[in-house]
């Protein structure tokens, strides 16, 4: 039998028996004939498909990439599209009013997605700064305008809005999500407890384990895969928690980057700055810290930061739990220690102690929403000018995220500002890695930058301005 997917679409409760592995974009354009949302890339990068999503229990809408979001993920959620915003009044949402008048659209193909991103921004933030607006637009590419009028429209719309958009408020309806949707041909499990989750994982080792799906679902978006069985971690109560205990923060396995962000901001501002460059607002609303690690990509930015912070990862199955230091979790290129019957229960990060200076640097062709050529994370503890502990980890330099342990050894017990010490540590970094050449950078460039980033770190913690974005 079919368990239909229930959601609120543009304020109206809808039940659909579409396959839960259908992308939201495909469903909107194909089944609902709502063709305002566009496919620009089918990889969650250009933002032309952006819609507003509010999942059960969330206060605000977030923009999301409908091209890589599956219908099963929307069970019990609220979905508002550009058409829904337009229906909110004779001239639509404030963002639509301003953008229609100030030259914010040329070809118009990216425009519906930009409208959704900015409407989502206004739902969370009624007086955004330029930087907030750039964060909100990082997942929306426009090839025509040069963005200036769009950024101005965001300011003007925020100034014009007297209250949160009525249409968004009115369409916030909490439905109780089912614990599974679909039928025998395509089943999408939405367990609510850890026990149910690990039980399903044991029962269906062939099922796809899905967190945010912001990388994994690309295969579906590209029509290369269909998923007859999917187990979502999203609604598992134990995995949705973030708590501080025993000198560490424990991030539940289904917490999104957007949910993690304020905690990073409080303890590791440099990590937070990195996360704001991590995908886009759309991606961070869906993508999880655990998913980023489970992906075991050598260029995921979460891993080097968390390794440098000495994080540990707790894996669970029906028999219990085990906890590993994070650097032991990565076995090889896209291969982790996560067994077929396990899930990531949590990621634990020890809180910073006196004298610790954590910094992470992401080098990429574009500042926002790019994948790192090199990502270097540094966490040194300095006591009376001497390095008392050091953890340095890189992404993009090897088949897995990797620590530069010999460089750490060269620094521990030494004076960081001793040129010979720094030189030795830099040499150690150089000899640790044999990076590869690809479209993001040559091996020589990666090697050079990895070494230079230690230089940057030393200057940075001394108070020097070290990044072009600081100007």
């Amino acid at each position, binding site marked *: 039998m079919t368990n239909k997917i229930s959601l609120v679409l543009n304020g109206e409760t809808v039940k659909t028996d579409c396959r839960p592995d259908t992308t939201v974009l495909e469903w909107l354009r194909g089944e609902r004939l709502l063709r305002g949302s566009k496919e620009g890339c089918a990889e969650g990068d250009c933002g032309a498909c952006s819609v507003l999503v509010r999942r059960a229990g969330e206060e605000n809408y977030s923009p999301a990439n409908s091209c890589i979001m599956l219908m099963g993920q929307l069970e019990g959620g609220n979905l508002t599209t550009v058409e829904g915003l337009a229906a909110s009044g004779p001239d639509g949402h404030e963002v639509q009013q301003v953008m229609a008048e100030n030259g914010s659209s040329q*070809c118009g193909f990216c425009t519906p997605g930009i409208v959704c991103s900015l409407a989502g921004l206004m739902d969370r933030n009624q007086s955004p700064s330029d930087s907030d607006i750039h964060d909100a637009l990082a997942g929306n590419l426009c090839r025509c305008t040069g963005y200036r009028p769009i950024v101005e429209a965001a300011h003007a719309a925020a100034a014009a809005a007297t209250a949160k958009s009525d249409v968004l408020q009115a369409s916030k309806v909490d439905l109780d999500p089912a614990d599974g949707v679909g039928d025998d041909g395509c089943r999408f499990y939405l367990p609510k407890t850890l026990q149910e989750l690990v039980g399903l994982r044991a029962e269906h080792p062939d099922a796809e384990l899905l967190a945010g799906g912001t990388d994994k679902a690309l295969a579906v978006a590209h029509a290369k895969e269909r998923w007859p069985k999917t187990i979502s971690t999203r609604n598992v109560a134990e995995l949705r928690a973030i708590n501080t205990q025993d000198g560490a923060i424990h991030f539940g396995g289904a917490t999104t980057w957007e949910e993690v962000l304020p905690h990073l901001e409080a303890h590791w501002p440099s990590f937070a700055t990195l996360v704001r460059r991590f995908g886009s607002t759309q991606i961070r609303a869906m993508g999880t810290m655990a998913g980023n690690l489970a992906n075991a990509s050598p260029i995921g930015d979460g891993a080097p930061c968390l390794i440098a912070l000495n994080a540990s990862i707790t894996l669970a199955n029906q028999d219990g739990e085990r906890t590993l230091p994070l650097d032991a979790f990565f076995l090889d290129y896209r291969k982790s220690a996560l067994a077929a019957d396990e899930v990531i229960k949590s990621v634990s990060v020890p809180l910073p102690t006196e004298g610790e200076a954590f910094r992470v640097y992401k080098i990429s062709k574009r500042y926002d929403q790019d994948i790192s050529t090199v990502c270097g994370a540094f966490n040194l503890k300095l006591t009376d000018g001497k390095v008392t502990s050091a953890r340095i980890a890189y992404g993009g330099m090897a088949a897995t995220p990797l620590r530069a342990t010999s460089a750490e050894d060269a620094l521990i017990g030494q004076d960081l500002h001793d040129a010979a010490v720094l030189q030795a540590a830099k040499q150690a970094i150089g000899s640790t890695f044999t990076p590869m050449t690809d479209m993001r950078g040559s091996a020589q460039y990666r090697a050079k930058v990895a070494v230079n980033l230690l230089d940057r770190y030393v200057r940075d913690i001394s108070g020097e301005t070290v990044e072009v974005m600081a100007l």
Partner: protein
Amino acid sequence: MNVKPDPASLKIERQVVGKGYAHDSARRHVRGEAIYIDDMPDLPGTLHVAPILSPVAHGKLAGVDTSNCAAAPGVVRVLTVDDIPGKNEAAPILHGEPIFADGLVEHQGQIIGAVVAQSLAEAIQAADLVKLDIEELEAVFDVETAFAANSHTHPTQHLVDGDAASAIADAQHRISGQLQMGGQDHFYLEGMVAYALPGEDREMLVWSSTQHPSEVQVHVALALGIKSHEVDVQVRRMGGAFGGKESQATIVAAIAALAANATGKPCRFRLRRDADMAATGKRHGFVMNYDLGLQANGRITGMKVEALANSGHVADLSGPVVTRTLTHLDNCYHIPAADFLGFAAKTNTVSNTAFRGFGGPQGIVATEAMIDIAARQLGLDPNEVRRVNYYGSETGEVTPYGQDVDDNRILDVVDRVMQNAEWDRRRKEIDAFNAENTILKKGLAMMPVKFGISFNLTALNQAGSLVHVYQDGSVHLNHGGTEMGQGLYTKVAQVVAEVFGLPLDDIKITPTTTGKVPNTSATAASSGSDLNGAAAFNAASAIKGRMAAFAAQEFGCDEADLVFANGQVAAGGQSMAFGELAHKCWFARISLSANGFYATPEIHWDGANLRGRPFFYYTYGAAVAEVVIDLLTGENRCLRADMVQDCGKPLNPTIDLGQIEGAFVQGMGWLTCEELWWDPSGKLRTVGPSTYKIPGSRDVPPEFNVEILDDKPNVHETVFRSKAIGEPPLMLAISVWLALRDAVSSLSGGKLAANLDAPATPERVLFAVEDMQRQVSELETK
């Protein structure tokens, strides 16, 4: 200079023209109500098409086994070259450029065939099941290898003016070297798409995201073996094009039509992003070998350039692209002796094509780099070297290809931009910043742009329109230009509204279609509003003339006394609504429909000798950019840009401003973060936005100032004395790249030129920094 006096008519206050109306579709854009081709409702029975792409860069295509593919779920037909009833021909200029590979594949991503299925997903999945028997051949990927082998796609062009070799040999100073610049993907947000509907007999209606409906019509007819009058091609709007949909839309439309023809069903063919980027052409990358002679004061005596364009596997538009490179190597500078060789190198990469600027930007980049290098070698300020070489009475006013620069505003735009940018103050501040900072360095640069307006090939400079006035006074407007976001439809509607004295809303803009206006040129070369605006002006004026003759009779006045304004027609104390007059004209059996035609005057071009007056006029602009670079990583950023752009009397300053800002950011992307990267097998690995990085909103300079110069009407007789705007401002972004070079040069106190190619990715900047540090330390040890 030979500037014509402004006609008295230019002093008339315009009602509609010159006002900054919003884009006609803006409201529909923001509401998600603008219908692009893929948004059209599916007609019953619609099938979907996916391409079969070559996995090999160069090889003999011995066999295509489609049996597995044909048997896959949902598959209706599989098409290969054998299924083309007419000609397998997509070449826009030459011939022998296939729709489907025929016995030979020449680049990875070349289209070999197409799968037609019930759904797009089924078509894509089945396309992977085709078995290809390809015998690999040696592939060539770089233009220098092709140049050495004299392997080209289009005959080599050689523009010679005077004796450059002697001028350079005899010069006091000489610089020579090589500069490389990458190509650029258009990254229009809407991928290529076509939807074909078979009609009665052999008729075919094709909705195509094309800048060139007439060319699509010709090639669909050729492919189907039918006549042009059996094909109708329509397009209401594109989601961006930038030149990418000028010639390259043809193949997509032809395949949709072939599928519709083979199945008898409506067929939709949309290239998804990865296939679009693999299978369709881009801006040409170039290698420039240069040799320049100069006097001690920086005055150029002779310039020799070998401009080697990466044409890709076939010519496409590479011939005229290279022509435009050669005719823009002068930029704003008088070159006393020129020897410009243009070579369209044949390589086993996707065939490159038109892209905003059409070869012009590459020529200007090369020349501006030469000036930067020469100035530092001579110990001069690059802007002083520019100044002694500008076209003018003291240097000369004839280009190497023989055209008079008769509308020169170079000094005007340069002086304004230097003033707007507060150059002197900021130059000092930047030098002080660089003296204080060890790892962050700033750079500043100014450059002017002169860009020739008209298609080089004279024949293309023609346009048509069709205007109807209905009995209620509402107006139907159609013309051969296409709307890709640039606001052409809005501008042309303003022209027609102005002629009739009607509010803009009374003009109904209708989709471009080959059935209404035939034999059109591509909407390209910045010429859209010049050509189509003039053609629409002529059509509207013809109708207005008939209406005026009738109204003069009715009013008993002279035609000259009639005023068409605010929806009224008036003379003396009498007036009537425009709609009333239209109704009366109908009753009196006066035709209220007219086609309009326009052919650009004064231009001529000898393509064999590269001589003539190819351009009706020039536009001028200038920019100053400030950047900062990081010596440890090469990361860089533009902090401020100031631009001045001559728009004549703009038809719509709001739309022109959008073109200037958008072009600048797009040009900045080309020269900084946008990098096409092929692996050693010739596979393009940057086939989506996750790997190919176009500028985002944060990349726009935080200080971003544009001044539109609207004080001088075009001295040449364009429609309402406006000037073209689509392409020229893209080249203003070269200032960003020059500022990056300046920042690298700062390590030598500005004395040495940076060894920096384009795009200036962080990697290229870092290596240029290292190269500069090496040069400086060598100098110091000497």
